[in-house]
């Protein structure tokens, strides 16, 4: 049975950064991921990463932009930690090999991004996430003797000891089907977001909210789950993302009449207002009949106004995306886009060392909610979040582990999970197909929990989620094998997504105001008097079928009192 000081579940940016930090702090480390680490969805991040690197900039300005972007729901102490530590983190990345693009003097170049009062986004063309992820993996290869990698292992549950501490997890070796108990003094979840509960989404097929659900099932609280980011520029043709970097480089948004409609809702920042603001403006154009395309369901993103050599150098990936996936040469004609599900602001509630409600259990990255993003995440703040809190979790977990003995863990959970998997494989073909339920969930969440929401729609959405939860209990699969049985993992992932969806709809129904990405047509204003707090969700009781229970948690305000938000 593998036993480590620090066990990390997930090998995207947050997980890999945590692993390296824990190893540097002297801990024995295991990192486990259901896909090869470089396939993690961090690889898709395009535009860049924020830090006040410019001598004329100040981290406080970055922090204020983040607070304002969050619609004052972000915790300001955590935001201060993130923004003040950002420049050193970027320098660290530069030192270990990230090929950040430079300006004419050979220093780091910075590009403009949404919601920022200054150019402060460091980047590698438009493959920033890929570049950082691959460089971290280079380091993991370098650390082979100190970090054990379990690649293509699927985590099925967390284990709590008699004293309530998290003492490890159960995972399945996808290649062989073998189940294994992992013992650990501390465990860090870094499993990413839950985009796949929506269809379409910019997230990969692996983003199924596993860690949020596992922590929730183990008794931790989730927070800010109603806050789902819709990105303003996803390709209408297929839902793929066009990075905000495009607008950062100067691209325009236009409606069917050719008007730059952002002038109405963000006359100063125009296309570079916060994402929630831009997405709402677009949806409004579309809803009011000024959309383009055969279904009038899009607006136009015009990249042709950006100099072509700059596009080829800095936005090459979206040239390829346009050409290969939509048949459009974006250097010659505008491309139809619309708001699409992109990011989960909420997640496992943690403090700024990454610790959750459960002793010994940490969370970092998109799975976590510190909360630095509050009601709306700024572009290029998420990569920063994964790295800062990944590192902090790794360091803190290693420190805690250094002063405690290795716990002893029974394999009761392992046997439970084995039984569960066997029962899924053995189910008669009388219920619905797992893939069918997943499809209905995605379409429903996207209909009822999107850019604009109301009581009636969300109530319907909630009923559907409850029904799908029932149907999932008898849903069947085809694959009976043990080697790479992706089918049975799909059934488990469906369960995770349903847990998260319930938390999302329930919180969204509860919050009777409009704040950040949560915009209600029946409560159109932000209401600080009644709603300036986080909503939390936890399981009401220990048994498997227990309902979700809502709670509250205060918002931490240090130096910025809530103000009206204009761009």
């Amino acid at each position, binding site marked *: 049975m593998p036993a480590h000081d620090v066990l990390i579940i997930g090998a995207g940016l947050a997980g890999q950064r945590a692993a390296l930090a824990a190893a540097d702090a002297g801990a024995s480390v295991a990192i486990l991921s259901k896909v090869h680490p470089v396939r993690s969805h961090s690889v898709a991040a395009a535009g860049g990463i924020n830090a006040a690197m410019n001598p004329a900039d100040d981290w406080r300005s970055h922090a204020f932009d983040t607070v304002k972007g969050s619609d004052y729901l972000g915790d300001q102490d955590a935001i201060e930690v993130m923004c003040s530590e950002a420049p050193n983190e970027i320098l660290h990345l530069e030192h270990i090999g990230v090929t950040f693009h430079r300006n004419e003097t050979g220093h780091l170049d910075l590009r403009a991004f949404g919601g920022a009062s200054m150019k402060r986004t460091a980047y590698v*063309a438009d493959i920033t996430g890929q570049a950082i992820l691959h460089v971290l993996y280079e380091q993991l290869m370098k650390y082979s003797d100190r970090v054990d990698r379990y690649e293509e292992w699927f985590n099925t549950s967390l284990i709590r000891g008699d004293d309530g501490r998290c003492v490890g997890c159960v995972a399945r070796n996808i290649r062989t089907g073998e189940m294994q108990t992992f013992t650990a003094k501390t465990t860090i979840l870094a499993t990413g977001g839950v985009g796949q509960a929506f269809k379409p989404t910019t997230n990969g097929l692996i983003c199924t909210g596993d860690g949020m659900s596992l922590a929730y099932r183990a008794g931790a609280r989730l927070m800010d789950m109603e806050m789902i980011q819709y990105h303003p520029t996803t390709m209408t043709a297929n839902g793929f993302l066009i990075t905000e970097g495009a607008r950062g480089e100067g691209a325009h948004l236009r409606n069917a009449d050719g008007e730059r409609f952002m002038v109405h809702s963000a006359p100063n920042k125009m296309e570079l207002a916060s994402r929630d603001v831009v997405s709402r403006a677009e949806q409004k154009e579309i809803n009011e009949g000024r959309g383009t395309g055969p279904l009038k369901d899009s607006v136009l993103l015009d990249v042709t*106004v950006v100099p072509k050599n700059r596009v080829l150098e800095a936005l090459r990936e979206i040239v390829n995306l346009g050409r290969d996936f939509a048949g459009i040469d974006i250097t010659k004609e505008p491309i139809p886009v619309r708001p699409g599900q992109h990011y989960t602001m909420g997640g496992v509630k943690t403090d700024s060392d990454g610790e959750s409600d459960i002793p010994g259990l940490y969370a970092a990255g998109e799975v976590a909610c510190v909360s630095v993003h509050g009601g709306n995440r700024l572009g290029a703040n998420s990569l920063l979040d994964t790295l800062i809190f990944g590192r902090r979790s790794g360091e803190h977990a290693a420190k805690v582990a250094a002063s405690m003995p290795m716990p002893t863990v029974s394999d009761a959970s392992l046997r439970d999970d084995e039984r569960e998997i066997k029962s899924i494989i053995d189910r008669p073909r009388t219920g619905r197909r797992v893939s069918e339920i997943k499809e209905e969930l995605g379409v429903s969440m996207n209909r009822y929990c999107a850019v604009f929401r109301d009581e009636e729609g969300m109530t319907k959405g909630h009923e559907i989620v409850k029904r799908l939860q029932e149907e999932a209990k008898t849903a069947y699969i085809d694959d009976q094998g043990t080697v790479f049985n992706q089918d049975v993992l799909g059934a488990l992932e469906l369960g995770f997504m349903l847990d998260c969806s319930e938390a999302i709809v329930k919180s969204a129904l509860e919050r009777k105001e409009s704040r950040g990405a949560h915009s209600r047509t029946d409560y159109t204003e932000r209401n600080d008097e009644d709603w300036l707090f986080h909503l939390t969700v936890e399981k009401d009781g220990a048994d498997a079928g227990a309902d979700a229970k809502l709670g509250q948690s205060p918002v931490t305000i240090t130096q910025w009192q809530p103000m009206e938000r204009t761009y």
Partner: protein
Amino acid sequence: MSSTETTNDGASTKVEGLQEFTLRLRRYDPESGKPAYYEEFTIELEPHRSVLDGILQAKNDEDGSIGIRCSCRAAICGSCGTRINDKPGLACHTHLDEALKRSKDGKITVEPLGNMPVIKDLIVDMDAVHWKKQARVTPWLLPSEPLPEREHIVPREAMVDVTQSMACIQCGACVSDCLSMEIDPLFVGPAALAKTYRFVGDPRDARHQQRLNDLAQDPHGLYACTHCFNCIEACPKGVAPMSQIMRLRRIASQDHHIVDRNNGERHEMAIVNSVKKYGTLNEANMIPDSYGGKLHPASARAMLASLPVITKALLRRKVTPKSALFHPKSPDQAQIKRIYREVGEREQRLEHNLYITQPDEDPAEIAAHEAHVAAAAAREAAAKPGVDQTGAGA
């Protein structure tokens, strides 16, 4: 493909409806004890959708046991490397209609990548081959110590330049069809050598010489590539591994004067000199020249060892006894000499890079585009005062 064609494709697919396609998937279940077999699935999708979308439809609706790695669906995670109608690539990056066009029997055949063991269906063991080879090239930055207090100051172009090899998503498509690797499984291979350029092209790395020497001396290293171009054709990200390999060789020989014991460098210089002298390859002189000239003792040994090759060349009329003795000069020899002179006089080698220039750049088009950008900027500038006023008022 010209852009108008692309645009038409995009536009026409919007009005076209669904189309039926037959996917012919290579199945292999290691637990069944049975050999691999092919199974057909009929799917219905818009023709511009990807082969991966097709496979996922079959998996979701008909048979959940179909094994394929995939996540992003957008050619960025590198999971879905497969062979489609005998060509390696990404399933999510290949349109159904394109794949059909390349098919001989009206079906789209999808198989696992080559040169790697198959685990199940379309899933291969990347660890056993691809990742092992990556580990071979010391794949992390080795900067000089101590590190600078702030970032390294490096030329702007250098970081744009290495972006082409950084763009590799480790999908293994190039490894699948590498000819050298087929013959020599120990060959370091296209992806790992492209990765090497990512460090050798990076001015922050302090071990260029050691990296190059290490790979030049390795009989399965820098000079084991046979220039078959398969990796360039296979790569979905424009990394062009073979071009990176050639750049590594140029840097090794011209900048670091590395002479390898496999005679790769001399062989390359022999080619260069032959073309300079004759305008074509003088095959008869290649072996002695590669091994240090006809009088070098090693060259006699190499000639003997290469007898089968020479005989084959004679048989295939690649080398006639007459041309071997009196190698004819190319009629344009003056031109060729001039090219050599000009390139030789350049202070810097010019290397083609995807992120810096585009192959099909048309000057007229660039000028037109620049005019368009300038006009847009002028329009914006004219509109600006109004915008600002609204801003101040809000």
